[in-house]
């Protein structure tokens, strides 16, 4: 399509589209909006968004949040410096001893896998990686083609 045709097409489509009248809103739309406004207005303040809360509640909420944050920070520092904290940490460490055991098993398994991979010729590894990539791309292509076919069928039906 040359630029002249393109301009002509643009003018034609623009003319057709701009002269289309507005579509009618569904019947009862106004009533639905008014009902929704009434429903929202009837909600208690604490079920509305923060901006609709009474100002003294908003200020109280901000002040309360600040106090809670300070108390939390202070509490964490106090807990970290106490003798009880060390006992708690020791208890947690004992109860999580199985993690160290699991780590040993994983590291042993990892070593065996590394040895196995080192024994496989690199060409086989590249081939396997390529096969996996091709399968993945094929799956994506089939999915996309199916989606487009279904969408096209729905649009033309």
């Amino acid at each position, binding site marked *: 399509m040359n630029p002249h045709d393109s301009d002509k097409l643009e*003018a*034609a489509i623009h003319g*057709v589209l701009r002269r289309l009248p507005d*579509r009618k809103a569904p019947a009862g739309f106004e009533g639905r*909006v008014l009902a929704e406004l009434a429903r929202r207005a009837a909600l208690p303040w604490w079920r509305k968004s923060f901006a609709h809360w009474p100002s003294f509640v908003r200020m109280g909420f901000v002040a309360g949040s600040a106090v809670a944050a300070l108390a939390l920070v202070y509490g964490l520092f106090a807990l970290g410096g106490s003798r009880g904290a060390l006992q708690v940490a020791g208890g947690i460490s004992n109860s999580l001893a199985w993690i160290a055991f699991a780590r040993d098993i994983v590291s042993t398994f990892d070593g065996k896998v590394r040895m196995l991979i080192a024994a496989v010729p690199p060409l086989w590894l590249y081939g396997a990686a390529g096969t996996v990539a091709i399968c993945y791309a094929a799956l994506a*292509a089939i999915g996309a083609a199916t989606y487009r076919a279904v969408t096209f069928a729905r*649009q033309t039906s």
Partner: protein
Amino acid sequence: MCKYQDMVFTTSVRLVRNEAQAEDISQEVFIKAHENFEMLSTSPSAGGWLKTVATNLSLNHLQRYRKRWKFFSEFGGDSGAEDSPPVEFAAPDTFFDAVDSDERRAWVEDALSKLPDHQRVPLVLYHFEEIPYDEIATRLGVSLAKVKTDILRARTALAKIMSRDDASFKMLAN
């Protein structure tokens, strides 16, 4: 509200295509308008404000689904028009003479709704909302070149659909 409800609904339904979703979006527009009633009640540009909010909410709605389906919907290029033969269409006035009946207007709306989202949305923003190409690109988060290509393809596809429907219409009429 009666004055603007058709305009708001039309703006939304042309972008999202689904009437139920467009109705939900339109409702949200008027709820926002109610929240800004003091400002809008005295503003001469209330209609423009409503149209802008309807456009923005519709685009937000589309973006939510677009992220999910972007890959599949845009994969493999278009079934569209770039390589297809040029479309024969009548000159604008002649063409529109045939579009004056309600039935034919419905056909044009139907043809518009048959376009895929990535063509219809920029076309609607350009021709109905009169937003320039570069702003459409920014708002949709795509390149300027893609916007231009999509709009060109949309026009061609639209002309093709309308030509086909026009031929069917004439055949039925005879």
